[in-house]
Structure formats: structure tokens, C-alpha cells
């Protein structure tokens, strides 16, 4: 029975069993999570699986796993539904850092602690959350800027392919990258920025247009490796990949492989498993009344062709 | 009084010439029923004969035509086509295969694709046969169009004209041409002259007689008494989904016809 259930997608059904079991023993901690958009990319899916696995490993924890499908309004509805169920803590992966603030406040007012995961809530919401757990997206942008600067020896002209317009992660990485590059590496100029919508094919198309427009491109910064590899594909097809340094973020398996082949310069390593475990641990500690730091960043080190041996290949 | 209403005398003289030249029974319907629409309808049509269906709107005439054309499934009865006996006709395609053609009641809604040109409308039912290899043969199509344009004297600047731009009479002729081109054994025309000018009306009446003369079995459904009296050899009078009486040309009078279709002489129907 259990095996068959596992075979079912994402093991979410198993979690339902756990949730039911949770109802029986009163001592377990019930944690609700509303994710941003599972299935939009592998990172979020792997995160979800890791989260469920981590929760299952802890007999004292039961979970309610929800997905907002990228829709702010639906996420707010889900937070309301979780308050309705009187969970012990709510973990929110904000679809938008500002828009969820009032809903988080509502949970806070209802006495339910909120842990924000992966991408942070706006500063107006900080008083209402118990903790944040996740990567530092601005810092990641900065790390990528440093990588780019190193790759080009401080001089050159690059293009940027950003994430989906309007989403926090996209905005923060872009900002971190641009500010740091201007500050630390004035010799490297960003000629143009276009969104790649976290979509490899879109990014490939944008890069093809860039390749036509600019006879000389020294580097490409893509807000994740999925888009970075799309840009690499375009450059390979145009036989210009050798002259261009590719820097991405959130190291994907394809990015890791391209790095191993020497086609891809570097990225920022970020493990969704770590991300998920960290979030659950933080939430449990909050419920148990332990003192936790408000900002719980997990490390996201830069990865490039030299140091990649120290990292295992991402599973997504 | 009825004569006053209609304003002219019956003209039965023409009938004698047709009599005697009738051929085989082309279609025989036995006890055909379709839910509440019509019940226990029986009649036959011979080759060379025009059978008129007369009745008020809602009497079930159009529904019978639609059943014969495979658009409705009857709940009881049989349909005999030549030697073949059927319980129902599955679809218009089957009806066409059996040599039945239907010129429908509403030419704009049921008869024509208004945005399509004259030729394409006319060849639509048989476009699958007018091919050379996998492609539609332009020549074969134009030949058919030219033939029926001349026969029916359709007035259009060119076959490329969208039928929506033609006059009502010419539109109706396209529909009739479309079904004549199928060379049917049984031609059903439902309200063939509704909403068209007097000249075209007369042309269409003559055409129907001529077709019968050529050996077609023709069923004419009409709500206009002069029309039905003028073109038919025999007339089926319907009221409320039932056949009240079948008149031959000799016995029909306007009084008896009106009585039949308004249910007055219900007693005789049984």
C-alpha cells in the first residue's frame, strides 16, 4: 500500500495520510506550507519533495502542503484556509514579497507563527513573521556580478537575461547584480536586459536577437541556469559561444554539465533540499519555542569550472 | 368562398397529360412515426409523379422530409426504397447514397453556405467524387456549374460570386441545381418558392413538372394551396402530425383540402 502511494506523484498523498494520522495523536506539530508555483521549474518541485521527505522523517510533524500556482490571490486564500485549520505554524514561499504582508499579519494576529521561505517578504511584513529561511537573492546577484567581473578581467560588454517580470526573485537578483557590477566592476557594461521568463526557449530566442544586434558580446548573465543554458544554445548555434562567458544562478544539472564541458563559466550553487530542510527546521524550532535568528540564510556559494569538484551535481 | 380567398379557379387540365406515364414505386413509407412530431404516416411516390404535402405549419411535413433525408431517427415504421426496406436512414450521406435529395425549407440557414461561391455551393454534396487524384477537379466542377446555370437560367456574373450576393430566386435555383446535379431518384422540395419573386416562382413550378416528366419522383411540401394544387399529381393532407387524407388530382377540391388540413373531417382520416 505504502509503496503504491509513493509511486503516486510527489508523494503528496502520503502526506495526506500523515495529516490524518496527525489528527489522532495530539502531540504532533502541524505545519502548513503554501508554495509559490510547483512545477514551474524543477527547483520548486525538488523543494517540495525534499520538504515532504523531511517532514516524514520526523514523527512529530505533520504537514499540509499547498501550491499557489504563482497566483498571489490564491496564495492569500490558502493562508486563510490554513488559519481556518488552526495549524501550528505556516510556511509561506511568497509569490510576491509585498502582497502577502496583510495575510501574514492576519495569521500573526490569529496567533499562528509564520516562517517565510526562499524569497523574503517586504520589510513592512518583517514585524509579523517569526523568521525567514532561504537564500539571499540580492547576495546571489552580487556573487554573480563578482564571477562575471573575474571572468572578463574587469572589462567588457555584457547582456542580461532576467527572470519573469514582476517576481521578487527576478527583481532582487537583477538589482543585486546591477548594483554590485556598477560598484565593483565599472569596466563591465550591461548593454541590454530582456526577460527570459524562467523559460529556456524564450531565453534562447532573446539571445538569438542579441547575437544579431551586438557583433561583440563578452558575457551573458542569466537569472538562472535554465535560461543561461538557453543563451548558451543560441551562442553555440551561431558559433560564438567560445567568445562569450556565461554566468547563471541557481545551478541546474544542465548548467553543471555545461560547466564540466567548459562551455559555461559559473553560477551560484543553491540546493532546494537544503532550502526545504532549513525551512522545516526553522518552523519546528519556532513552534517548540526555541530562539531562532530572524534571518536564517543558508549558504549559496559561487560555483565555477575550478571549484565545481567540491559540489555534487544538482538533481534537477 | 374558398375560391374567393384564392382568387382563381383550379386548373386541372394539365394533369391528364401526366397520368399514365407513371413508373415504378420509388419510395414507400409505411406507418412512419417520430415521437410527438408525426405518427403513423404512410404514402408512396412513383417515378414521374409529383406528390404534394399540404398542411399548416407544424403539421409535421418538414419533419417527415428530414426523416427521409436521415436527419431524424423515426420511432416506428419502415421506409422502402425500390426493393430495399429500411427502418431508418442513418445520415444525409446515406440518404444521398440512396438517391434522395432534399431542397430544404430555409435556403439561407440550411441550403447554402452564404460566404462560399456559387460553384462550390452547387458541387458541395458531390465534391468528394469530382476529383482527379486526391484533388478537386476544377474542370469537372465548372462543367457542372455551367450545365445547371444554363438549365436553370441562374443569373450571376460568374461562378466566383458569393451566393450571399445573389437574389433570393437565384439562390434557390443554386440549391435546386445542387440537388439536381446529384441526379437523384427522389427529389424532395420543401417550400420551394418561399420568399422569391413571382417570375422565379413560375419558373420553379415549371421545372418541377418538367422533372417529373423526366421520371423523377418528386415530393413537394408547400403551405401555399395554389402551388400545391398546381404542381402535384396527388396531395397528402396533414394535420397535427397525421395524414388526414390522400387526394388524387381528380378528387381534390379546395374545400375538401382545407377541411382535411384543419382537422375538420377528422372522422374520415381514421
Amino acid at each position, binding site marked *: 500500500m505504502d509503496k503504491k502511494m509513493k509511486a503516486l*506523484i*510527489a508523494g*503528496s*498523498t502520503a*502526506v*495526506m495520510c500523515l*495529516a490524518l494520522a496527525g489528527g489522532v495523536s495530539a502531540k504532533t506539530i502541524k505545519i502548513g506550507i503554501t508554495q509559490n508555483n*510547483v*512545477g514551474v521549474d524543477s527547483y520548486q518541485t525538488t523543494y517540495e519533495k525534499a520538504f515532504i521527505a523531511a517532514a516524514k522523517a520526523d514523527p512529530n510533524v505533520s504537514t*499540509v*502542503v*499547498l*501550491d499557489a*500556482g*504563482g*497566483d*498571489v*490571490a*490564491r496564495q*492569500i*486564500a*490558502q493562508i*486563510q*484556509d490554513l488559519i*481556518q*485549520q488552526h495549524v501550528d505554524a505556516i510556511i509561506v514561499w511568497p*509569490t*510576491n*514579497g*509585498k*502582497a*502577502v*504582508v*496583510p*495575510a501574514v*499579519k*492576519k495569521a500573526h494576529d490569529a496567533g499562528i507563527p509564520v516562517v517565510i521561505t526562499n524569497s523574503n517578504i*517586504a520589510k*513592512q511584513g518583517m514585524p509579523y513573521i517569526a523568521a525567514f529561511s532561504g537564500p539571499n537573492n540580492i547576495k546571489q546577484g552580487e556573487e554573480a556580478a563578482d564571477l562575471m567581473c573575474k571572468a572578463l578581467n574587469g572589462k567588457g560588454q555584457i547582456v542580461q537575461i532576467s527572470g*519573469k*517580470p*514582476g*517576481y*521578487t526573485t527576478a*527583481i532582487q537578483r537583477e538589482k543585486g547584480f546591477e548594483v554590485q557590477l556598477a560598484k565593483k566592476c565599472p569596466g563591465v557594461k550591461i548593454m541590454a536586459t530582456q526577460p527570459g521568463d524562467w523559460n529556456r526557449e524564450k531565453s534562447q530566442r532573446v539571445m538569438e536577437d542579441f547575437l544579431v544586434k551586438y557583433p561583440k558580446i563578452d558575457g551573458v548573465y542569466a537569472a538562472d541556469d535554465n535560461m543561461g543554458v538557453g543563451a548558451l544554445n543560441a551562442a553555440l548555434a551561431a558559433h560564438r559561444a567560445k567568445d562569450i562567458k556565461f554566468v547563471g544562478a541557481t545551478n541546474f544539472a544542465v548548467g553543471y554539465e555545461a560547466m564540466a564541458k567548459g562551455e559555461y563559466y559559473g553560477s551560484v550553487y543553491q540546493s532546494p533540499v537544503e532550502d526545504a530542510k532549513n525551512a522545516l527546521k526553522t518552523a519546528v524550532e519556532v513552534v517548540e519555542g526555541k530562539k531562532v535568528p530572524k534571518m536564517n540564510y543558508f549558504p549559496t556559494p559561487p560555483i565555477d569550472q575550478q571549484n565545481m569538484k567540491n559540489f555534487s551535481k544538482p538533481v534537477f | 368562398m374558398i375560391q374567393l380567398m384564392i382568387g382563381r379557379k383550379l386548373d386541372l387540365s394539365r394533369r391528364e397529360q401526366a397520368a399514365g406515364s407513371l413508373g415504378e414505386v420509388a419510395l414507400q413509407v409505411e406507418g412512419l412515426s*417520430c*415521437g*410527438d*412530431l408525426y405518427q403513423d404516416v404512410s404514402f408512396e411516390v412513383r417515378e414521374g409523379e409529383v406528390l404534394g404535402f399540404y398542411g399548416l405549419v407544424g403539421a409535421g411535413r418538414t*419533419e417527415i422530409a*428530414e426523416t427521409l433525408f*436521415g*436527419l*431524424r*431517427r*423515426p*420511432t416506428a415504421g419502415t421506409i422502402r426504397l425500390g426493393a430495399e426496406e429500411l427502418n431508418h436512414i442513418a*445520415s444525409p450521406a446515406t440518404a444521398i447514397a440512396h438517391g434522395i435529395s432534399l431542397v430544404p425549407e430555409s435556403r439561407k440557414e440550411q441550403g447554402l453556405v452564404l460566404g462560399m461561391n456559387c460553384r462550390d455551393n452547387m458541387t458541395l454534396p458531390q465534391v468528394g467524387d469530382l476529383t482527379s487524384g486526391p484533388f478537386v477537379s476544377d474542370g469537372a466542377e465548372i462543367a457542372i456549374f455551367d450545365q445547371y446555370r444554363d438549365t436553370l437560367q441562374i443569373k450571376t456574373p460568374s461562378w466566383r460570386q458569393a451566393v450571399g450576393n445573389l437574389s433570393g430566386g437565384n439562390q434557390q435555383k443554386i440549391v435546386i441545381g445542387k440537388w439536381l446535379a446529384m441526379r437523384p431518384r427522389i427529389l424532395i422540395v420543401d417550400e420551394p418558392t418561399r420568399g422569391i419573386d413571382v417570375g422565379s416562382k413560375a419558373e420553379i413550378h415549371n421545372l418541377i413538372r418538367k422533372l417529373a416528366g423526366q421520371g423523377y419522383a418528386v415530393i413537394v411540401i408547400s403551405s401555399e394551396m395554389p402551388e400545391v394544387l398546381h404542381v402535384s399529381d396527388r396531395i397528402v393532407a396533414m394535420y397535427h402530425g397525421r395524414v388526414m387524407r390522400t387526394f388524387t388530382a381528380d378528387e381534390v377540391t379546395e374545400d375538401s383540402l382545407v377541411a382535411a388540413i384543419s382537422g375538420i373531417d377528422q372522422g374520415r382520416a381514421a
Partner: protein
Amino acid sequence: MSDNPLKSAMQWLARNPIWSFILLIFIFFSIANPYFFAIQNFKNILVQTSTIGLIALGMTLVMINGNIDLSVGAVVALAASLCVDIQDWHIFAGWGDWAILPAVLAALAAGTLLGALNGLIVWKTGVDSFIVTLGAMLGVRGLVFVYTKEQSFFASNFAFSDFGSSNIGPLPTLAVLFILCTIVVHFLLSHTVHGRNIYAVGGNRAAAVNAGIRVGPHMLVNFMIVGFFAALAGITLSSQMGAATPNLGTNYELWVITSVVLGGTKLNGGAGDIIGTFGGVLAIGILRNGMNLMQVPAFYVLVILGAILIAVLFLDKQLNRKGKEELRL
């Protein structure tokens, strides 16, 4: 004798499959999930459906007219952004909570104007509303990004988001607003000349012209109404969140149209009513809420929603069949 009311109730349900469907899922979720059957949850459902619901009210009018508006999702985002941004403008700094007023008015005006623009183009050019608003769907979203420069806005005045979560008596304010608007639009559609004309224009445009209805301006008004309601939905949504994001309302047009059609409005126009639309909105709201509470995995939710949409359409078709002797087209 005593089974007569029951019988007529059953007949009514058979004619309105959406309400039988609501009854069905209501009973199902009440039994299947311990959290579903609770007053607080019903309030949640009402608030959660109010956004789609408000737009659906306007959309019903436009669709009975035989038109459609695909740009409502983008209008929601524009209205929300305007509303949240403007109340923080410096010139209103001294207004206190009253700063919300010009913000709301500006948002409503923007929505109504965009509706008027759509309507005017449909009227004057004769281009199909599907195309006009498909273009606007993209273009208005572009306007949102031009205005917001990709930024989200946050209402620093909590009075705005407090309004979104406030109550009037026992009911949430937003639910009351939604129900009030439903009643008003229902009245407009069923008891006014304009309402009667909506059916006339949708049923047979040529006949409506002959009857002396000025079809162009008439349609324009309905586009303004749906624009107004899309903007109102944007405002209530942003007040629920106390914030606005440029991606707000993505895909809402699809869900709105779905609810309206589930409620029995014909896509070709000429038929439909507000009660039905209310049912359609409620059905989707209950489904979503119930599946959330039951933790149906997100992937399956998509399949289930799609399947139910088709199933209800199928059911409707079966129930409205005239019988075996129907014309087989």
C-alpha cells in the same frame, strides 16, 4: 400532494444543472473534510470568490450581448496598482485615510475608460470583440508594466487592508459588496430597459436595430460596466492583500468566462442570467476551497478542474436535449 414542492424543486434543479452540481460538491466536501462545514469557511469562500465574481457580473452582460472581454485580468492589475500607488502620493499625504478615496476613484475611472476604449473600438471598427480584447489583454498588461516599472506596490496605510478584512455585522465587507453588486446587476438585467435590450442585441442584432436600439452605444455601455467591475475587483483584491503586483489577475479572464458559461450564459449571446453566473462563480470557489482543504495535489487540481468544466457542459447538453427525435445535426 405533499411532494409537489419537492418535485418542482427537482425540476428547477434539472433546468439549472449548476445548482445541482453545487449541492453535490457541497455535500461531498462537508462529509469528506472536517474543516469545510464551518461558518468561517463559508465566509472565506464568499470573500475568495468575490474577485472573480465581480468581474463575472459585468462579463455576463457583455457575453449576453454576444461579445467577450479578454482584457479583464490586465485591468485588474492596472486598477490594483493605481489604487495602491495613488493613496501613497505626496499630494494626498495630509488626507489621512481619505487618501484612499481619490485612489479608488482613479482606479475605477481607469477600468471604465479602458472598457469604453474596447467598446468604442468594437463599435466603430466592427472588429470582433474577441480580437479587440485579445489585443487589449496584452496591451493593458503592457500599460501596467509601464506604470509600475515592474515594481509591486504596498499600501503603507493599513486602513486599506483593514477594510479588506473588515466585517459588516456578521459578514465580511467584501462578501457584502459582492452580494450587493450581484443584486444590483440582477436588477439591471431583469428589470430595466437596458437589461431587456441586452438580450435583444445578443439574440438578434438586426432585429434589435429595427426595434430602434442603438446597438453601438449600447455595447459600449456594457464594456464600460465590465471594465468598471474588473477595476472594482482589482481594488477589492488589492485591499485583501494591502498590495498590488503587476502580474495580478493573470488568467482571470479564463476563469471568469468559465464561471459565466458554467452559469448557463451562451457564448453566442442572447441567453443567460445573473443567478446562473452567481452559481458558476460559487461552484468554482467551492471546488477550489474544498480541494485546498483536502490537500488535493496541485497537479491533480488542474486535471479535475478541467474535467469538471467539460463535464458540466456535457451535463447541460444532456439535460437540455429535446429527446430522441431531435434533429441530428
